Every structure is written in structure tokens, then in C-alpha cells.
């Protein structure tokens, strides 16, 4: 028994002695990083832009891409580095033709995290080039390193922005608008929706359920009336698929 008691007492004394030692905490070391915001109901990993709904006199339009920082805020503006990663590839957006270059004097001061902020909306200014009436233009972006930031969260370093002058499928169609207009989508159906309801902003589905129902019923009514006026020639997409709201 004695053999057990003495080691126990010794161990207890040791614990007491070490317990008095000051605990040294790890100190945070600022290492600013930058990444693209990604949320469930806000910005995802891409933005689809179209000039289709705008008057012909509109020659440029701005899309805002949200970036976030890691690390402490600073009391001065911190420029960020955006790099196009698909240059030279098919459908790649061309700086100066499809979008205003990031180093353009009009933008240079806006591609930054403002003083005191940890999040910013970075303007991407698209130019309405005639080629957009034929084919979509893609701007694949990544965040690069500079003296202020390193690239942040691995999975949120890349972002896609597209533009065109065609009817395009809204980014949130499959997560949002399908509950109003059905899951099927096509340019002819989209044009019917736009022409019958006048709706051109598809960035967010309305929170007023009755207004959402109005949009749905109005578009459905337009389809019913078209098909009734064109017996045996129902409204179809270019590939012959009949337009439905299913």
C-alpha cells in the first residue's frame, strides 16, 4: 500500500506546482486573405448577365461581384488582384471588347477593399459588343496574391461571370423560379414570360406569394391563349419541344 501512496502524493505535488505556471496563449498573427463570397440565398459561384432586357441605347452595364477578406480590417484602402483565367479560350471575354479592363483608370480605385471594411462589391463593367447577340461571353476569374492579400478559402477562389445579348436562363431558375414557372426552361418560354408579365429582373423571386402566383397565372394564360389561337401549332422551342409550365 505504501508503495502506492508515495507515488500518488508525489504526482499530486507535481500537478500543484505545474498548475501555478502561467499559461501562454497563442497570439493571432494577421495574414490577410481574400476570397469570393458564397451564400445559400445570395451570391453563389457565378453570375449570368444579359443585355437582352435593356434598350438598344444602353451600351454598358455593371455586375457586382462580392469579395470577402480574412484577417483584420485596415484603416486604408487595400487593392485586390483579379485575374482572368480563361484568356484565349473559346467564348472567353476579351478585355476592352466585352468588359472594361480591371486596370482601367475608371475602375482601378474601385477594385479594392475600402478602409475599415472586410467585404466589398467589385464592379465588373460589361460592354455591349455585337458578338454578344450570337454567343455568350465568359469571364472566369480568380483572386491573385499582392502585397495586401493572399488567396483565401480554397473552394472560393474562382468565380464565373457571363454576359450575352440573348435570352438566358436565370442563375436561380432551378433553385427559385421553377416554383413559379415550372422546371422546364427555354428561350421561347422565357420570352413568353417576359412579354406577358413585363418581368425583366429575375435576380430574386418575390416574397409576396400572390404576386408570384400572378406572374405564373399570367404567363400560363398567355400560353393557353396562344395555343388556342394556333390550333395544331402549339408554342414550341426551336427544337420542337412544346412550351409548358411543368
Amino acid at each position, binding site marked *: *500500500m*505504501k508503495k502506492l*501512496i508515495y507515488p500518488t502524493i508525489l504526482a499530486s505535488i507535481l500537478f500543484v506546482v505545474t498548475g501555478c505556471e502561467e499559461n501562454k496563449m497563442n497570439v493571432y498573427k494577421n495574414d490577410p486573405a481574400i476570397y469570393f463570397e458564397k451564400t445559400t440565398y445570395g451570391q453563389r459561384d457565378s453570375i449570368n448577365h444579359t443585355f437582352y432586357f435593356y434598350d438598344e441605347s444602353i451600351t454598358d452595364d455593371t455586375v457586382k461581384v462580392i469579395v470577402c477578406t480574412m484577417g483584420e480590417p485596415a484603416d486604408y484602402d487595400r487593392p485586390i488582384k483579379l485575374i482572368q483565367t480563361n484568356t484565349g479560350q473559346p467564348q472567353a471575354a476579351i478585355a476592352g471588347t466585352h468588359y472594361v479592363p480591371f486596370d482601367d483608370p475608371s475602375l482601378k480605385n474601385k477594385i479594392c477593399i475600402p478602409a475599415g471594411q472586410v467585404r466589398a462589391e467589385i464592379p465588373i463593367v460589361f460592354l455591349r459588343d455585337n458578338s454578344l447577340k450570337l454567343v455568350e461571353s465568359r469571364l472566369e476569374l480568380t483572386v491573385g496574391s499582392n502585397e495586401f492579400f493572399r488567396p483565401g478559402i480554397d473552394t472560393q477562389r474562382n468565380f464565373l461571370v457571363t454576359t450575352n445579348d440573348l435570352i438566358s436562363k436565370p442563375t436561380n431558375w432551378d433553385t427559385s423560379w421553377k416554383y413559379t414557372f415550372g422546371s422546364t426552361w427555354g428561350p421561347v418560354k422565357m420570352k413568353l414570360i417576359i412579354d406577358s408579365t413585363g418581368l425583366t429582373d429575375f435576380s430574386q423571386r418575390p*416574397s*409576396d*406569394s*400572390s*404576386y408570384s*402566383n*400572378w406572374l*405564373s*397565372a*399570367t404567363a*400560363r*394564360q398567355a400560353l*393557353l*391563349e396562344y395555343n*388556342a389561337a394556333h390550333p395544331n401549332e402549339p408554342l414550341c422551342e426551336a427544337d420542337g419541344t412544346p412550351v409548358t409550365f411543368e
Partner: protein
Amino acid sequence: MKTITRYIASVFFLLLAYSCVDDKGNYSYLDPSEIMPIQIEGIEEEMTVQIYNKLQITPELKNMDNPEKYTYEWYVMEYVVAGKAPERRDISNEQNLNYEVNLDPGLWRLIYKVTDKQNNVYTRAEVKLNVIASPVDTQGWYILKDDGNETDFDFINAEGTYYKDVLREQGLQLPGTAVSMEFQDQRYYHNIIDEHGNVVTLVNQSAFHILSSQETYTINSKTIQLFKDFEEQFYQTPETCKPQSMKHNGSGFRFFVNDGRVYKVNGMSANVGKVSPVAGLYNLYGNIITCGYKECLVFDLVSHSFKLADAYVDELLPLPELEQNDAVYSFENMHYSLVCMDGGPYGTQGYAVMKDNESEGGILLRTNNRTLGFTSLSPIDGNSKLLTTDLLAMPNVADFLYFKHGNNKVYSYENAKDIAPADKEKEILTYPEGELITSMKYVFRKATDEKPGINQLAVLTTSAGNWKLYLYDLLGESTPEINSEPAKVYEGEGNGRFLLYRNN
């Protein structure tokens, strides 16, 4: 050391052994009536009071030994709140309440609490308090009327007090002649702009929907102030303003028929009280019957078909077929014309009278309102006067109805199979020539300890620019027979067109 160890072990063993002894406890249970003998009685479960009027309640405190021994609290809390917890507002610390009501119109919980000062034990009673800004926001009869140019309504409360030209008092008469009126007791939504310029949605409001030949007003029932006019009912105003009927189900699912088109509101989702259309190539009969949970039954005059309008769906739906006596009946492309259809309040029943286009006779379709579609189909004899009516009234449950024949006669019609066709219908009321029957309603309320029951047929007539309301007692709940001597008769000025009874 061995001795110390043995002592410690012995103590542990003793504790262990003692812990197994059954604990008898040292509680002494008392009868609740010994701790709090007071019982609160003499307070009604529901009360209606007009704002700024005195609310006086003298509760009966049974077993009161010494009033000084207790504290008394009267306080109110909102009955329904959205996005926050109800707030308590103390209104009195007296044993009896004598309070000038200074609360927003709406439903409140009025709580009375009696607490023993010594032991802090209390007993409480609760009242559902309906605070109204207008005396017409309560139980009673609403008589929708017009003078040929403008629509208004009169009101007779449960005590028989008559309020004339309620809308005129507020400058809210509708242009055109009176069509119909609906009371929605809850789940009406409306947007207002507050003093800071923010859009605020008023939730769970109660409202009157009033239809005239040229306008539709939705009016706050608490204040008799306008929520929406015809244009504001829609996201896109229809080209033609021809309001025909407005009805709602229990949970705020509302249907509005204008110019043969049906519009709806899903009261269970966020909305602002505006209606959205139901798509389809149809032209509806003006009246509808609410059924199911969120549906209404409509008749399309184009396809001669009954359809369902569903508050969740943006197109009309086909009506389920009826299986009856080994036969299956479809309600699509029927070889019948609709003579008349109407239903009671949500949760009761409705009927459709149809005339055969190919032969004499017709059919009577019945729905019990909780079922999607019709629950029975019965033949109507070719000689039946029911086939020429334009006005029905039906009880909540029993299978019979009342109908108008000509301008001034009321008939009953029993729908039981074992009654010979000639015996099914009976003339039960005849009014003087020139007195036109314009509306009929059946009203039922079960008797409670506090309120007597009601089992009446109400008939509204109009002649020479004046209306008369006759209330007849029925002789039973499952028979159409009535005491033809009216229990009450009210009369007023204006062409009475539509009758609404409000039971809450």
C-alpha cells in the same frame, strides 16, 4: 495506515448500505383548495367592447374569506402577435374591473389574477376580449342595400340595435347597386406606409369585402376604414369591373369572381391581400361554393363543366368524378345547364341545381364543403319549381334546402330519396305582391350556458325602396318546417339585396 484505510472503508460501506434504505420522504400533500380556496366565476369567456367605453366586470370570488388577504391584477396581452412575444399591459389592481378601454381595436387576452399575499399562490381567469372601434364589428345581421346609385349597409346587432347607413357615416358608399358581402374574420393582409415612409404589412386583419355592380371595397372591420378598392385588389386591374362574388375558407384562402374570372389569395403564405388570377379559357357562373381546405367549386359556362379553383394552383383543376350506386358521374362537358348554385359558410354545405338540356327534369348536386367535389347527385322532377329558381338557402348539415319561386314565394325542398317527387317541395312562405325576395340565409348556433341557440331562416325582401328582414324559427334541426309567424321582423330604407349573418 492500515487502520486509517479500514476506517475509511467502513465509512464508505456504511454510506453505501444506508443509501439502500427506502426514503420515506418528508412531504405533506395538501388539497389545492386549502392553499388557494378562491374560485373565480361570473366572467364570460368572450366579450366585445367598443374602444373608449367602460369595461366593468365584477367577478364572483367563491370561498372568499378575507379580501385583504389577496392581491388582484387585471392585465391584457395581444391575442395574436407576429415576430415578437405578447406584451403584458396592466390595467387595474382592483378586485372588480372598471376600465375605460384604451386598446387598439383587435383581439386581446384579458387576464384576471388573484394571488394570496402570504404564499404567492394564485388563481386566474381569462377572457377573449374583442376591442372594436365601430359598434358594427360584432355579431349580427348585415343588410347590403342600395338606393339605385350607391351601395351601403345597415347592421342589426344581437340585441336588436339597428345601425343605419354604416358606410355613409364614413363617406364610403360604393358606386353602383349592391351585389354581395363577405366577412373575413382573420388572415387578411394589407400594406400601409408608416410615418417614416416604410412599407408595413398589417397581418391577421379582419375585413368586410363589399361588392357592388361597379366597385369592390375591402374595409377594415374594426375601424370601418378602406383597405382596398377594386383597382387595388389586383396586381393588374381587369379591363371590366363586374364583381360577382367573394368567399373565403377558414384559413384566409379567398376567392373573388369578377366578370367570369376567378382570382385567389393563399392566406397561408406571405401576401399583401391582393388577388392573383387563375389561368384558363373559361367564363364562370358568378357564384361559387367553398369546399375542401383551400379550394372552391366553380362552374364554367363555356365547357359546361364544374372545376376546382385551388388557392395553391394557378390553373383550374378538374373536379373528381362521383361514384354513386355503382354509377360514375363526370362533371366535364355536362348536358345540363346550371340553374343556380350556392353554399353556406365555410364548413357547411352547398347545392347546385341543374336543368337537363336534352329532356325534362334536372339534377341536384350536393357538396358537404369538406369534400373536393360533389357528394351526391339526385334527380329533380321535370315539374319541380326548383328548376326555375335563382336563390337558394340551405342548412349546415341536413339534406334539404329553401328556394325562391317567382318573386315572392319561398319553398322548401327535401332531397331524401324515399319522398315522392310531388311531396319533396312545399310552399312555406308567401309575401304580398310587389315585395321581392332578394336574399335568404339559414342561421344556426348551438345553445351554450351563456347564449341561447339559433335555428332560423332569414328572408330579406325589398319593395318600394325599403327592405324587410324576417326571421323564422325552424321546428327542428333536420326538418325544413318553420314557424311561419316570424320571430322577428326588421325593416329599413333602401333596396335590400344581400344578407350576411356574422356569428363571431
